[in-house]
């Protein structure tokens, strides 16, 4: 039997009120001049919440490594100029210096 604790009571409440079907269209990256570029390139292979959940702790070198992984290991169609802009955006909006 489930142990009915305060936690599960709140959880049940959520089930009724706050739980929705999966829909990535509501993921909104921080608005910026390069948001459209980031969405256009990164969203080819994954939803933008991958960026959000890794927000707030990666330095420039880490974001560079992530973008390089996407282009070199996974073959993301992103040219060098775009990759530079994407890294700058990620550092600016989701990185730490």
């Amino acid at each position: 039997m489930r142990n009915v604790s305060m936690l599960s009571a709140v959880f049940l409440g959520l089930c009724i009120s706050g739980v929705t079907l999966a829909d990535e269209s509501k993921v909104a990256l921080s608005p910026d001049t390069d948001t459209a570029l980031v969405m256009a390139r990164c969203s080819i292979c994954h939803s933008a919440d991958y960026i959000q959940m890794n927000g707030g702790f990666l330095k420039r070198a880490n974001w560079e490594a992530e973008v390089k992984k996407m282009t070199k290991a996974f073959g993301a169609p992103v040219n060098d100029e775009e990759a530079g802009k994407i890294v700058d955006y990620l550092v600016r909006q989701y990185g730490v210096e």
Partner: protein
Amino acid sequence: MTTRRTLLQTALGGLAFSTGIAGQVARAALPQGAIDSATLERLPGKQPLIKRSYRPPNYETPLADFSSAITPNDRFFVRWHLMGITEVDAREWRLTIGGDGATKPYELTLDQLKSDFEAVELVAVCQCSGNRRGLSDPHVPGVEWGYGAMGNARWTGVRLKDVLERAGLSKETVEIAFDGADRPALDVTPDFIKSIPVWKAVDENTIIAYAMNGEPLPHHNGYPARLIVPGWTATYWMKQVVSIQALRKPLANFWMASAYRIPKGKFAFADRFISQENDATTPITEIVVNSVITSHADGQRVSRGSPLTLKGLAWDSGAGIRRVEVSRDGGRSWNVADLGDDLGRFSFRTWQFGLNAQDPGPLVLMARATNRQGSTQVSELIFNNPGYHNNVIQAVTLTVV
């Protein structure tokens, strides 16, 4: 005061959990971005799970939902690497067995898989290699999992070694590789194909499962059939498996050569994957001994003087759990908890510990599992860049009022 928001954050795995070091309690928390982007969402056929990413879908089970040793299918975590996920029609599904190490390649329908080989059943924990990555300190990039990228099920299927035997394995075979029906968005992206050493493939506990807790596998857990590699992390448990290849040379793709590797020398492990080792790293293999508190969450209020039963789960790579201990003084002293039913050495083992909170204020409770080989959990994280093997002793801080 425990607010609704606190509990919501806890349900989402967002609130800091404490990790124990004797005499002090360190805090381990998900990155802020992971806390903010997590939502409770319902995939088709699933109960609400904690969404880490929509596409590919990565969803973990809230800790409060681990209330029994067996994880219900509709609460079982979801983890995919590639966005091209198709619903497999079981009538169309074929499993091809081949490769340069197979002298008699052949193909199976689902009916043939079920009828041509002896059915076997076992209970085993499926745990993502990166479970708890989000609690890494310092944080590391990746899917920022909390505690719930794991589940335990009763799997029904056939022994992989029986299937391989019919293919006539050559003596030169070093690895068996597995491909699922999922595909990358771009042809240039490495397909998710994984291999295991031939010795592990012919282990009698390694099976191709077509049922999970007595039901067909849920789509998101690998319908119509997936590999079960008891004791090893879930990266090898190929979902929707469509191809099994016997290889005379080690598989050298991104997913073997670059991903899912641990630094050599940092972790004690018994199961070596020699054909994939290099000077610095080796593939992750077996699950480390671990435990979790599921009955209570950080910040929860409990009544002074009322009996309290702390509950949780413990597991390892298949030695089996010898004991679970609970500390109520920050790790200075430990008391043995009661173990629940033994469902097999690869299974979650439930445990519980009764106590009576007398002193008002914070009450730190910690749990620590030890397996039958004497391996136990660590007090401090063994840091590694991919964020694997986090078995730091968990602690929850309750408030006695």
